[in-house]
Every structure is written in C-alpha cells, then in structure tokens.
C-alpha cells in the first residue's frame, strides 16, 4: 500500500536516510523504533509529502507520489493518508468540533449537517462528546491528542501515520491515547507508528522496524526484535528503552 524504494535523504551535506526500502501492506501496523536523531521522523514524513527524497521513490497504492506530482495526485495522498504529530497541532482558534469538521467541509465539501453528525459520532466513540464546543487549550494533552486522531479520521484515510504521538504527554495520559490507537489498529486500519511504547508494539504491531543512523538495521515481528534481535546495537537500544 505504501512503499519507500531506495530512499536517500540529505539535508545539505548531512545524509539522514541511507537507501531506505520499506513496504507497508494493507492492514499492517508497522512500528518504527530507534534512537533520537536516527531519522524516524524524516522517514515517516516521506510517506505524506512533508519531505521529498533526495533520491529514490515513494509509492502509494503502486503510484509514485514523490517528486513533482500533480495537485490532484497530492490531494489523493492527503485525503487517504492521515498523520498525527507529537505536539497534536490542533488549531487553537477552532473549537473541537471545528477542528474535526474543517477539512471534511473544505476538502470533501460535506455539508454542515453531515460533518456535525460525523464529528458527534467520532467524539462519542472516544468518550469525548461533551468536549465538542471546548477549545484545545481547555483540554488535557491526552484529550488533545485523541481529538487530533479524530481530526485525521474524519477524512476517512486508508493509512494513519503517527510520529511519537505519546512522547509529549504526561505519563498518566499515555494510556488513553494508546488505547485509542489500539482500538484503531484492531479495526483493521493500516498504521505506521513511530513510538517506543513496547506494550503497544507487542499487542498490535505486525512488524517492528529498527532505524539506526539513517539505516534500517533490522526488522521483524515484535517478538523477534524485542527478544531475539540479531544486532548488538538493536539489543542495546531495546534494553535501554526497557529499563528507563
């Protein structure tokens, strides 16, 4: 469904990704782990046009989406691939409902009654229906991140990308966000998740990818990577996130 083919990325002289090959299949939950600065964000941002490869290709549903593609092709990517960021990035001057409904309204041209119905439904599923008229700064971090997930889901994407969705949260709020993500994974959503939450990876991850200094050093099932890693660097990293 999503594919990076020989992707190399340089910022100036700094090569951040080296010849990355990664395929994400329909219904898979791919978990990306790796040390800070290893290129995880840069990698995932290639999947929805926020970064362009210096060389190599990015494909979505077997069509090339990297390089200069038409506005229509870009639109197809944005409508089908949602992204949730570390810092939520809700629109602070919009209410929760406006945050959720704005893109469906202006991109998909849904009517107000359609988006109202949709946002109510999504909020109910997340137990946030009483927050529809609140502004983001009146919500906890965990609530904001769940609203950000809903905002992406409102576009009916086929793939959801998450870049460290819980790492800016207070510890007591991590679980509620992970719970929503697990629910989404179990509903069959294709997901790519940069996270160090091993519980999440163990429970719903189809595959864990270890990124190190811009290379995919190894990948495998959660069990293979967490308990039977082949590389010393992987083992070191895993033991670090396990015991800190």
């Amino acid at each position, binding site marked *: 469904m999503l594919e990076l083919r020989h992707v190399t990325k340089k910022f100036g002289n700094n090569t951040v990704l080296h010849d990355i090959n990664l395929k994400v299949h329909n219904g898979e939950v791919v978990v990306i782990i790796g040390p800070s600065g290893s290129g995880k964000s840069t990698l995932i941002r290639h999947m*929805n*046009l*926020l970064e362009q490869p210096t060389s190599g290709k990015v494909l979505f549903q077997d069509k090339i989406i990297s390089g200069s593609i038409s506005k229509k092709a870009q*639109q197809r990517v*944005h*409508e089908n*691939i*949602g*992204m949730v*960021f570390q*810092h939520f*990035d*809700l*629109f*602070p*001057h919009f209410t929760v409902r406006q945050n959720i409904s*704005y*893109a469906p309204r*202006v*991109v998909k041209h849904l009517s107000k009654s359609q988006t109202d119905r949709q946002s109510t439904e999504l909020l109910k599923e997340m137990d946030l229906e009483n927050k529809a008229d609140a502004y983001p*700064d009146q919500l906890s971090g965990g609530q904001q991140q769940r609203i*950000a997930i809903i*905002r*992406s889901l409102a*576009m009916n994407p086929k793939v959801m990308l998450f870049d460290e969705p819980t790492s800016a949260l207070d510890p007591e709020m991590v679980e509620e966000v992970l719970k929503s993500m697990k629910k989404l994974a179990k509903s069959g959503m294709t997901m790519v998740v940069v996270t160090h939450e091993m519980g999440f990876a163990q429970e719903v991850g189809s595959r864990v990818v270890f990124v190190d200094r811009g290379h995919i050093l190894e990948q495998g099932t959660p069990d293979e990577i967490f308990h039977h890693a082949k590389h010393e660097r992987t083992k070191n990293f895993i033991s670090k996130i396990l015991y800190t």
Partner: protein
Amino acid sequence: MFSNYSFITEYWPLFMHGLVTTIELAVISIVLGLLLGIALAVMKMSKSNLLSLIAKTYIGFIRNTPLLVQIYIVYIGLPQLLGFSVNDFVTGIVALTLYSGAYIAEIIRSGIQSLPVGQTEAAESLGIPSYRILLNIILPQAFKNILPALGNQLIGNVKDSSLVSVLGITDIMFAAQTVRGSTALGLEPMIIASALYLVICLILNQILALFERRMRHDA
C-alpha cells in the same frame, strides 16, 4: 507671547475638516496597507525566488528612503504611470499605503513565523488548500500576536499623514499652515495642530489597549 488664540474661532471649521481628513488618510491607508502587507509578506516567504526578491527589494526601498521623497515620487510618477491626473487625496492615500504596506509586511511575516510550523504541516496533511491554510489557519492566529504592532503602525500612519499636506491635502497640518500664512502667527496654529494629533493618538491608544484586553480574554 503664546496668547493670541483668537484665530481659533474663525479657523476652527478648517481644523475640524483637517481632523476628519487626517483620520480618513490614516484609516484608509492602514486598511489598504494591511492588504498590501499581507501580499508582500506572502511573496517574501514564498518558495518562488523571483517573488521573494521582488518583495524584498520593494520593502528595502521603502524602509530606506524618506517618506517625503516617496510622496513626491507617487505625486509625479502616478499620473505618468496611469496616463491621467490623480486627485491629491488619492495620491496621499497611495503614498501612505505603499509606505505602511512595507512595514506591515514585516510585522505580518514575524507574526507568521512565530507560529509553530506544525500548524501548517497539520493543515497540509489534511489536504487543506494552501490559500485556506493562510486565510483560515495562519493569519487569524498571527493577527492575535501582531495586533499591538499593527496598532502602533496605525498611530504611525496618523502622524506620517501630516507629510502629505505638501500635496495640498486639507488635513490638520494643512489647516495649521493656512492659518500661519493668513494671520502671520507662528507657533500658535502649530500648537493647536499638535494638540489635535495628540488627542487622536491618545484615543487610539486607549481603543487598542481595550481591544488587546478583549482578545486576551477571548483566547
């Protein structure tokens, strides 16, 4: 020696007319300057090197040449450019708009750049078209941050507008000059003029402070 203010009764209507003209000049030029400033800020930040260079050059020219020179350039150049004569008030508006637009562009640019880049990225990843990202996501947030600076620019426009009296626009300054010419009084009409400018600017300051407080409560 500063006691001869009997001219006021005769010239009061002229000063009041000047007051209205000054306010019109400042308000119209700040509104148009805002539109120009938005366009220039967007150009300067655009990916197109050409657009960015045009905006940079323009802003650099305005900020590094005296307003009075710019007023004369517009006064002489505008009719040549258009091929017909332009009324003085319009000339004054154009000059003040071109001038304040460059400063407002810099205000807006810093307001936009102070926002987290995640706002644009989140909006892009939802497929929101870029003009809507600018108009509905970025600018409303930027305006909240730059309102004080825009207020100062409005006050600046009130004061700077005094220069366009050289074109014969009947603003406060023009009224003062007229009185000077026809009564042989020196300082007194200028004192009246400065009092009128002072009153406008102090009232504007109050209104702006009120606005800011309101905005902060809304947030």
